[in-house]
């Protein structure tokens, strides 16, 4: 054979020192990211939607809390908003709610027909709206103004028109 005899003919994983450094750096980076996410969810309390309730999409508009959707005041400055996302007609019911600045609003959203989305601009309120499930997140509104929520999942031809507004009054 003309090939030179290798120094170490035993099979082994050869890792270049630079590559080793890169691998260690990559692992550290990913661990730091995971810790940052953990801090954000447990110290800052930025949570994802979690299982809330199962409903029958065929009956929500006639019985239960979604039969009379809208804003309800639980205590001064604390509200819950029941919202139905309709694919037949492409609208949110209600389309508009109004709360005073400093209020905390818990959104409950569901659908009687197809999947929808619920994203409130400039906030972390971002949920899939799935028939049979109730999606919920809570948000505090300190700055007066008008904020749109939009449907972000394709729900038929009129999807682009589907949005609602929360007015935060001074």
């Amino acid at each position, binding site marked *: *054979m003309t*090939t030179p005899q*290798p120094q*170490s*003919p*035993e*099979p*082994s*994983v*050869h*890792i*270049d020192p*630079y*590559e080793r450094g*890169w*691998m260690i750096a*990559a*692992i550290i980076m*990913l661990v730091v*990211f*995971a810790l940052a*996410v953990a801090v*954000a969810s447990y110290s800052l309390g930025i949570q*994802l939607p*979690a*299982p*809330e309730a199962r409903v*029958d*999409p065929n009956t929500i508009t006639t019985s239960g809390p979604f039969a009379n959707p809208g804003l309800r005041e639980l205590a001064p400055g604390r509200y819950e908003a029941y919202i139905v996302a309709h694919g*037949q007609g492409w609208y949110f019911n209600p389309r508009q709610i109004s709360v005073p600045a400093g209020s905390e609003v818990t959104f409950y959203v569901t659908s009687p*027909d*197809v*999947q929808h*989305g619920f*994203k409130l*601009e*400039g906030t*972390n309120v*971002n*949920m*899939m709206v*799935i*028939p*049979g*499930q*109730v*999606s*919920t997140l809570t948000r505090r509104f300190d700055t007066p103004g008008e904020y*749109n929520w*939009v449907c*972000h*999942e*394709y*729900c*038929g*031809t*009129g*999807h*682009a028109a589907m*949005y609602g507004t929360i007015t935060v009054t001074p």
Partner: protein
Amino acid sequence: MTAIATTTPVAAVTPSVVPAKYVLSKGEKRFIGLQLLVATLALSIGSLFGPLQALEFSGLTIGGRDLYALFQPLLASYYQGLTLHGVLNALIWTTFFITGFFTLTVTYGLRRPLAYPKLGWLGFIMMTLGLLTAAVPILLNEASVLYTFYPPLQANWAFYVGLVLVVVGSWVQGYGFYITYYRWRKQNPGVRTPLMTFGSLITMVMWQIATLGIAVEILTQLLPWSLGLLPGVDPQLNRTYFWFTGHPLVYFWLLPAYVSWYAMLPKQAGGKLFSDSLARFSFWMFLVLSTPLGLHHQFTDPGVPTIWKTIHAILTYAVAFPSLLTAFTVVASLEYAGRQRGGKGLLGWIPKLPWSNPSVSIQILSGVLFVFGGIGGITNASYNINLVIHNTAWVPGHFHLTVASAVTMTFMGIAYWLVPHLTGRKLWAPKLALAQGWIWFIGMMIFSNAMHTLGLLGAPRRTPLGVAPYVPANWEPRLLQTAIGGAILFIGAYLFVAIMVVTVLRKPAPAAEVPEVPEAQSIQDPQLTPAWLDRWAPWLTIAILLIILMYGPNLFYQITNMQNTSPGFKLW
């Protein structure tokens, strides 16, 4: 496969891989070429709708009517176009290209024909029949459900049947690869599987495990439901089935590009693969980690417990690791190539790379875009940070950097040598092909930058923003930017198609001028890679166990709480 431990060191470094090259038969070339042809046809049709969507964003109207009104009755709506764009580009262009390319990487890598070429043809015919079956309802506007086909939007049953046939056809081609590999392995015990074959087989196995999700979704829920045999489905459960397949689908697209980057690009660039062991380790990591993390697509789903979302988020970080390894190995291989070509200094190797080779340059450019795609991907995976961008324009911005850049540009780069190789022609207008890669690169930079920014501003995805009533003024310049990027990409797509068509129609070239299959050598003899990196059983066991652990309890919870209460809706 303990041969290595017992043979002498000399035998260990002089493997018995027999012929140095393998000449594909005419039949094999025709078979691979036909699959690339279907893929390219799909891309050429799917790409028609891209600029239409992008121009719609800009709010462009003609004679007071929106753009889609002009195409009626051929094209009913934005969403029918978007369904065609997603299905043809993301599912058909990729799958047909991949099965064709893998036929090459298996036969050329192993230096032998497929054990049962008819099995390959059977798979291909099933895929093509599936494509045609799904195409009919899509073209008739009976399946405008986008490529994620979330119920309760209900497509015509033929759409679901067609998708099943495409997937099962790809499995059948995969079985042909496995048998071919098994025969080779029996005759070559202890020899390291050639890397191009190795990566392709792992990708195919990963795909066959991962597609069980949509197989179950379609066969137990959507198909009987669309046929009227099942009155309702459970939309949340179907999302979980879908994303069981949906995320590894991304790796099914991406790993063939990695096969090219690891096993071919170093040769094309004039160098060698930097690390054979770590290349193999990366592929095994993808087999193990691609599937048990699909819930990171469902962070905002109401019906999935947050503990499982957390666990899948962590696993998604883990799968970033083999991609980071790939980034190092591919760049190191290119640096090695650049230095072999006389590059000096810290960065002097970069200009020495063969930038004038259209196949090389477009693949390097695809890698550059993929860096941004990877960063965006980590953002998407980051649990509550995902709340900022979920289902916004950021997401299509992201996957146009992955599937429409890293994957599609690499496939184009492969086609630039593979189509001449298969047809015995020289590539037509290589300078134009070079420009094509840069045009795509620039168009994508403009497009994806705009889409990411729109997403951060809150613009929803899958929405004709040109007609949406809630668009604030600060989105407008970005919507225009999207239109410009989309138009440039359209030019890039059709330049590619034109180059392919003219190349195929040229006169045959002398054999010496036709490119060969670029098979990269690694710096270290692959026989020195440990045997455990070439053994299926342990990795496959870990992969299956991890899927059962990470999906089992949550799927059990969702299936036992299944409520088939959603009838079908056709709201388009």
